[in-house]
């Protein structure tokens, strides 16, 4: 249900910390549009600038250069309490001296709502996050997951144009996190509010987002749908950061992918517009291992059993390592042992040619 109107326009934003010689460029000309009603995720390793960007939208950090616009209106010069966006903090930041309902009512009170108008909204939000019986509790009497829900209800209560979520699930344990992922997605659908979600967890990003912006070292690496990001990584960083990837150097010639002594495969490259050396990325689940079939020649260097699947680390005959995943759908039978000579075949479209061919960055 993604509309086409742009909710937030991030227009070549830079953030510089410090001054003069020691200045650090934490964000380097970030430009992207976040559309109305979409679940948008900023994904990247810690220190990549994603939280800084989120804090700039909320108004907790100044923009060093560039501009951020909300529905066309510049946010520059607006203090946090003057911006119609709300934040769910990483540590929740619930007011410890107020009850759950007082926490949720806080933003409405500050906006000057009458007490009689506040009550039904608070009740409605409590219902929305399934905490109706907890109105009089204090934050410290709640579990982590419940606190998380209160933080959500509190941020949703004043009906913000955009909801910002800063690593909001990272404090929860795995099981609860999975539950909350579904929950967040439901809330976003039901409220129709634009969500901007910050996370370093690629799986979380793929699960929940309509679109993802991958960031690294203050730079935007790629913006796109989860499928775009996973199947068509724009560069080596994105391919490496999202999912498992083997990087191989090959030669494209006459519709063939050649790997020296390991042999060659036919027509497996997504982008084969020009011949020559190619930096290739391939997902382990798109390769197939066999002892006697066709494919690239190699030797099994290591076998890692992981329950659902087994990963084989294969040393190809030309010296390059590559990973092959085999689903254990017919029991934990092992295809090969360490030291076995094997063949590696590829599914159609398995190899993705990276932009910076020839560079090993």
């Amino acid at each position: 249900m993604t509309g086409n109107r742009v909710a937030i326009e991030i227009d070549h934003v830079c953030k510089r910390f410090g001054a003069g010689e020691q200045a650090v460029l934490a964000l380097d000309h970030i430009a992207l549009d976040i559309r109305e009603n979409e679940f948008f995720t900023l994904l990247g390793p810690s220190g990549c600038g994603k939280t800084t960007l989120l804090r700039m939208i909320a108004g907790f950090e100044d923009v060093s250069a560039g501009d951020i616009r909300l529905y066309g209106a510049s946010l520059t010069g607006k203090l946090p309490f003057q911006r119609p966006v709300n934040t769910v903090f990483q540590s929740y930041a619930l007011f410890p001296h107020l009850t759950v309902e007082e926490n949720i009512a806080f933003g409405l009170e500050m906006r000057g709502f009458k007490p009689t108008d506040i009550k039904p909204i608070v009740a409605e939000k409590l219902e929305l996050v399934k905490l109706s019986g907890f109105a009089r509790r204090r934050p410290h009497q709640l579990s982590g997951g419940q606190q998380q829900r209160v933080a959500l209800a509190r941020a949703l209560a004043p009906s913000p144009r955009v909801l910002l979520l800063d690593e909001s699930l990272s404090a929860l344990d795995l099981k609860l996190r999975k539950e909350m992922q579904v929950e967040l997605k439901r809330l976003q659908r039901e409220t129709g509010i634009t969500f901007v979600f910050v996370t370093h967890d690629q799986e979380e990003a793929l699960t929940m987002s309509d679109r993802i912006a991958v960031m690294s070292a203050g730079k935007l690496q790629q913006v796109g749908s989860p499928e775009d990001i996973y199947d068509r990584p724009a560069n080596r960083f994105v391919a490496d950061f999202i999912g498992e990837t083997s990087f191989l150097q090959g030669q494209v010639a006459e519709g063939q992918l050649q790997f020296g002594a390991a042999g060659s495969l036919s027509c497996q490259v997504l982008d084969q517009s020009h011949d020559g050396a190619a930096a290739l990325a391939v997902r382990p689940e798109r390769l197939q291992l066999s002892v006697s079939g066709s494919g690239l020649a190699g030797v099994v260097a290591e076998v890692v059993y992981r329950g659902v699947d087994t990963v084989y680390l294969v040393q190809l005959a030309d010296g390059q390592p590559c990973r092959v995943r085999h689903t254990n759908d017919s029991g934990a039978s092992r295809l090969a042992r360490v030291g076995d000579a094997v063949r590696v075949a590829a599914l159609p479209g398995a190899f993705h040619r990276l932009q910076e061919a020839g560079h090993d960055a």
Partner: protein
Amino acid sequence: MQASNTLWRFRGVTPTAMLAFVYLYLPIVVLVVLSFNANRIATLWTGFSFDWYLKVMDNDNILRATKNSLIIASGATVLATSFATMAALAMAGKRFRGQAFINAMLGLPLLVPEIVTAVASLLFFLALGLDLGLLTVLIAHTVFCIPFAYLPIRARLEGLDPRLAEAAADLYAGPFATFRRVTLPLILPGVLSGAMLAFIVSLDDFVITFFVAGAGATTLPVYIFGLIRMGITPEVNAVSALMLLVSIAFVALSYWMGQRKS
């Protein structure tokens, strides 16, 4: 847990500690006991009496000095605590240039010997042509009360998640609403204990007050000093014991409050 282990019994530690506690409390106990002594010769016990307390209550000079002490302590506490709270809020934010200088300045009244502060203040007031009186005492007390009020408030702010103030701002609370609704309620124990320390320190101060008080603004400690210099009398015992009890009550109260809040 550690005490039960014989490993941890260092020789001589327990007797020295006992000696220290006796040493600290013997004079206080003796003073309080002697204040109930019926005898005119202050150190010779002859019988129980409440007379000296009644005499103290009846002494206009003492009552006037007490009133001055309370006025000054209240005034200095309110001013110092407000200033210190504001300063602590600013110092708890992002680092800034000049922060070390302000820190050093806040440490100054604690560091400089009282007699030096007293002389400097006296000379300053006289050079300004101010009449020594309640105002000069109030100013001097506010100055040395600020660090005492500041330290517990700053410590409390140290333990406060800065995200809470951000969350308030995010939920449309301006700076005053954020302070009134979020920050103040959360640092209140620190503010109260700061205020209490400021009050005790002001009430107890002698040296600085002695220099800057002039004739009209005699406080209780200054008055007691005058009495002591004239000689040891049962009235001095009684008023001193009262002074002690007030301080002890305050410390106990602040301890009790600290216990309750945490």
